């Protein structure tokens, strides 16, 4: 048996150590992962598809997983589905006219457009065409993604609840609008553990021009222990905070210091008998290993030229979306469970024609390259790639902002998925002729979460953590359905 700090011998004191640890994990509320009740004897790593390098809260997976890891390309700000994937010729025909009342209905709109006199339809200024054997629609903004049409599944009737950025990002990240719950990636790390001994299990990177803030609360562990929070890779300076030794202390010196710390800690351990000290020694060892591993991961010099070219010229620029897409692949390859990119700049209240062009120019090629790269390496089979933002955008314009922008639209938007057991070359769900309401097969954010968990081998109903007396779930208490139709 291994614990999350590395190997521990199964002696009495270490059993106690683990129990201590489990209690601590649960913030003192007792660890309740439903799986442990249902499969009490199956806690052997390897045979269960669970982690080999740290304790997973789940003793066994509930289903055979189709994905082992996730790369989530989060497009922050709310990309316009109407200008990328959701082709609406009738909206184009109505361009400039009011969106009919029957379409608008009574749903909430934001304060930014609530008081404007009219809701005039804004057809997409971009050309659409079908691509691949599957005939999926792409706008002209996405020539590279269009070439990978047959690898993607588009969920076109996604639905969320909040109408503003912060609650909406919080919702799609954690299943709740209000802060305080664990992020999806934290849940995965908690449930599945880590597959990698010398890298964090949940890594986050940010890029793009921040028209909306991207804050670390979005990858917070909530009530789960802090070790499950996303670790942000910084685009400049140390990729992992405090990774570099101070000038004058080289790696060998650091080794000697870590060694001395460990020796002294071990002496203390014999005197005081606190099993936690053993865990501390392991933590220092892993920190020391990370100092070697991380610089190697971010060094692209071992990448063939054709791979670098595939991602585009920006791949050489640390902090760019392209750079981070390639880094995401390199981290996934090394067993990082969940890599999440936050690319900002999609909040186009104005200037859809210019803004969307700029956004897609910096993301289209690298997104396509990542999926192709994973495919070529055989990694796409068990790596789930997700592309999407916190909500969509309205079919009408925001008249106060130059009449060529779109407001927030939670009622329907598009998410794209690839790999990891998702049906490829497929489109699911439909919106109405204005792309304003859902016409068929709605997928709520909760359904989306449950379905992703299903791919990872987890039954969302049985994946819980005791918080304030409740066995809380990522998917909450409202009715949730798994979207079986998009599973391969």
């Amino acid at each position: 048996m291994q614990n999350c700090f590395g190997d521990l011998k199964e002696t009495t004191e270490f059993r106690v150590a683990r129990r201590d640890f489990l209690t601590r994990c649960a913030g003192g509320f007792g660890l309740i992962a439903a799986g442990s009740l249902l499969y009490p004897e199956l806690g052997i790593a390897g045979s269960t598809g669970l982690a080999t390098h740290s304790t997973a809260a789940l003793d066994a997976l509930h289903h055979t997983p189709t994905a082992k890891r996730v790369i989530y390309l989060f497009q922050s700000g709310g990309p316009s589905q109407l200008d990328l994937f959701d082709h609406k010729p009738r909206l184009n025909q109505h361009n400039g006219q009011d969106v009919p009342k029957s379409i608008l209905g009574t749903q909430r709109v934001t304060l930014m457009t609530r008081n404007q006199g009219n809701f005039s339809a804004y057809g997409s200024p971009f050309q659409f065409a079908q691509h691949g054997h599957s005939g999926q629609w792409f706008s002209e903004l996405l020539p590279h993604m269009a070439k990978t049409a047959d690898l993607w599944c588009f969920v076109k009737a996604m639905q969320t609840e909040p109408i503003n950025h912060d609650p909406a990002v919080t919702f799609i990240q954690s299943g709740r609008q209000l802060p305080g719950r664990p992020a999806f990636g934290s849940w995965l790390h908690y449930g599945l553990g880590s597959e990698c001994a010398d890298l964090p299990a949940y890594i986050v990177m940010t890029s793009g021009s921040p028209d909306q803030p991207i804050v670390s609360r979005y990858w917070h562990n909530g009530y789960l222990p802090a070790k499950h929070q996303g670790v942000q890779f910084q685009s400049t300076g140390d990729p992992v905070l405090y990774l570099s030794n101070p000038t004058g202390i080289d790696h060998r010196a650091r080794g000697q210091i870590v060694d001395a710390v460990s020796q002294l800690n071990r002496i203390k351990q014999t005197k005081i008998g606190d099993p936690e000290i053993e865990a501390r020694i392991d933590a220092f060892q892993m920190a020391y290993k990370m100092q070697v591993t991380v610089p190697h991961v971010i060094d692209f010099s071992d990448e063939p030229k054709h791979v670098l070219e595939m991602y585009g010229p920006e791949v050489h620029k640390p902090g760019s979306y392209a750079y981070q897409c390639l880094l995401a692949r390199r981290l996934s390859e090394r067993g990082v469970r969940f890599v999440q990119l936050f690319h900002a700049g999609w909040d186009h209240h104005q200037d859809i024609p210019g803004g969307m062009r700029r956004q897609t120019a910096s993301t289209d090629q690298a997104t396509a390259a990542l999926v192709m790269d994973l495919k070529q390496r055989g990694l796409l089979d068990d790596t789930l790639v997700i592309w999407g933002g916190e909500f969509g955008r309205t079919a009408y314009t925001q008249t106060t902002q130059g009449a060529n922008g779109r407001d927030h639209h939670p009622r329907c938007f598009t998410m794209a998925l690839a790999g990891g057991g998702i049906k490829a070359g497929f489109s699911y769900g439909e919106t109405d002729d204005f792309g304003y309401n859902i016409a068929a097969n709605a997928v709520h954010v909760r359904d989306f979460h449950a379905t992703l968990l299903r791919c990872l081998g987890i039954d969302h109903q049985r994946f819980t953590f005791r918080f304030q007396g409740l066995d809380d779930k990522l998917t909450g208490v409202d009715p949730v359905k798994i979207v079986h139709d998009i599973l391969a």
Partner: protein
Amino acid sequence: MDCLFTHRAVWHARAPKNFLCLCDCFHSASSGLVIFVLACEALLFLAHDTRAAEIIFDRDIRPLLAEKCFACHGPDAQEVKGDLRLDLQDSVLKKDGTGAIVPGDAKASELVRRVLSPDDGERMPPPDSHKTLTTAEIQSLQQWIEQGAIYSEHWAFLPTQRPVPPDVRTPHFIRNAIDSFVLAALEANGLQPSTQAEPETLMRRVSLDVRGLPPTLAELDEYLHDKQPDAYERMVERMLASPHYGEKMALLWMDLARYGDTSGYHLDSTRDSWPWRDWVIEAYNANMPFDRFSIEQLGGDLIPNSTLQQKIASGFNRNARFNEEGGADPDEWLVRYAIDRTTTLGRVWLGLTLNCAECHSHKYDPISQKEFYEIYAFFNSLEEEGAGGEGGFHNKPVPPVIAVPTRQHLQLEKELLECEQQLQAQGQETPARDPEIARVGAARAGELREKLGASSARLPLQMISVEMPASRPAFVLLRGDFQNRGEPVQRSVPAILPPLPVAGQRDRLALAQWLFDPRHPLTARVTVNRLWAQLLGRGIVETVGDFGRVGRYPTHPKLLDWLAVEFIESGWDTKHVLRLILHSAAYRQASINHHRNDEVDPHNQYLSRAPRYRLMAEEIRDGALHTAGLLNEEIGGPPVFPPQPQNYYAGKSGWKWDVSVGEAAHRRGLYTFWRRTTLYPTFVIFDAPDRSECSVQRPRTNTPLQALATLNDPQFVEAAKAFALRVWSDAPADLDGKLTTAFRRATARLPDSPELDVLRVLYEQRLEHYRSHPEEAAALTDFHPLANKPADAATLAAWVNVTNTILNLDECIVRE
């Protein structure tokens, strides 16, 4: 299984009646077999165990029913299935004998039959609930029914009474009443207390627990050399009298009070909350009674003729976040803030998860959804902005605010007043005697007025509570949705708790005063439990924010009540309760774990030794700076910006982190600017909550990122460097002497010989390296002129390696 086997043999001899019972159970095929075995084990155990531990309904049965059954058979009347409520005795034990339980007869009880049923359609909990009962739980249920199925009100809702300290077998351990309770529990479990900790350990423990700082060598020596019998008690008094006591207490309170220097949503604009924080520090240092402390924060603005200080205190309610995002709907967010305040009241003073009743009646505790909104109604009528509105509400003070004169401002006012008085006096005495003096005086007054004007414009604007003249109407919000109003509600408190006075205003002030009604069963218990957790690592009720039915049963229920009554009768004297605990023998025990009790008490909940655990994030940093002699011990004032990685705010629009320079960078952690959406990184790494909402308990994790922080965070490196210089100048001159002093500065104790060996070897290894690599030595010591002399630089560099090592020891970041 050995044990069970024995039971079985005994059972055959004694319990033919139960044999029949087993046969009854055995009526199904394979799926039933497992159940059968469980049932056998349960009943065998029951039949045999004549000295079965007493079943306590509160501890053993109610939490079990709450967790496994209440979702369908509990307080949420809308969800009740089969007309059975297991939380109500009358619903379970019907007079006509048709109830789910027949007291004294587990076998005849329908509940037991359903729990044991092999039929998926009958068995409880049903399979689709994904809940199962363990063998031990079924045993407990059966035993409880056999013992008469006695229901009692949940302990935490019953009034507190002062219990008599129990008799114990080894009274010499006892120093005060606390120890009687602790020792009795130890004896009942066959455990023995530990001996007293070493004096160095004790001093460091008290210093950290009470001030959040380790002791200085001088403080340590003073205590060690004090041979009077009350040396310990006097040391405790010195610690409690330290002005840093208020800082430690404030740090803990700031988590509860969700303190932040920013609004907490979206662009996360800055706000001036620190006058409130300073009020808290001062209140603790003055040992303000906890009732007044609470009342002024919840309702200070409503106290007739409230003072500036009371208004500042009422900023507590405004510590809730504020959504400044453009487009956000004010109506929605006004509701959120009031819910946040209701939730905070619940967790801080009532120890209840009131927020569970936001969308539906509480599933475990007797709090209906209506009652939730009745408390909410006290908090929904503050004068405040709801949200950013159409264009956003960025970087503006969120009214109502009050300008708070700073110390410097008050000093200016004083100077001006003096100056003016002098001028006036001069004018009256000898008009025009010395025009030059008058001119200088007038010029000085003019200058001061100008400064004062400028100062006034810069005064912090503390957000405060102001009640609207007419209250906003309050409604039950169906499913917590602000657009979905149910019945209107009036201000009131839950029926399970003492009522509000019939006469008088029903406002926040009255609500705050109600918390301190002597009959209130929760406030004192919840508060002393937190004080206990502050000194002993975990609460008597482990779930410090949940005293409800699924909260943990107290490990020492009578001790909790004894402390609660003591707290009330002392006039809510916080220092008094802390002092009692600090004086106890239980607190003074050594924390050495001999692993003798791993089976009986693996988590040390009965305290056969003192707990040993990691310090809070801020304390770890403060400790390193303190050991290095860098800590700036100034108290209060605006937040500061110690260095954080330059790229940490990359991609975050509009935020600046103007690094504080000089001593301002070395203030205690509680003064570090608290940006709620992106916290100071080293604190996040060490489990600090972002304080988006009330946080009652910090986890204590142990991760590689923490190791990197203490090894390489520039502030920790800076501390190692300053510490090295300190060692350099420390007497004695010899290496072992220096190593010993350095070790002692950090850990308060002397190193033993193997420890000294490790440090000496490291020092010599590194010295040799730096002698042959002067450029590395120079790079590491360029903070000091010594770097110019290679020999000195090599020595100092080697010391930096040693001090960096010492500051990374487990012992430095734990309290033991």
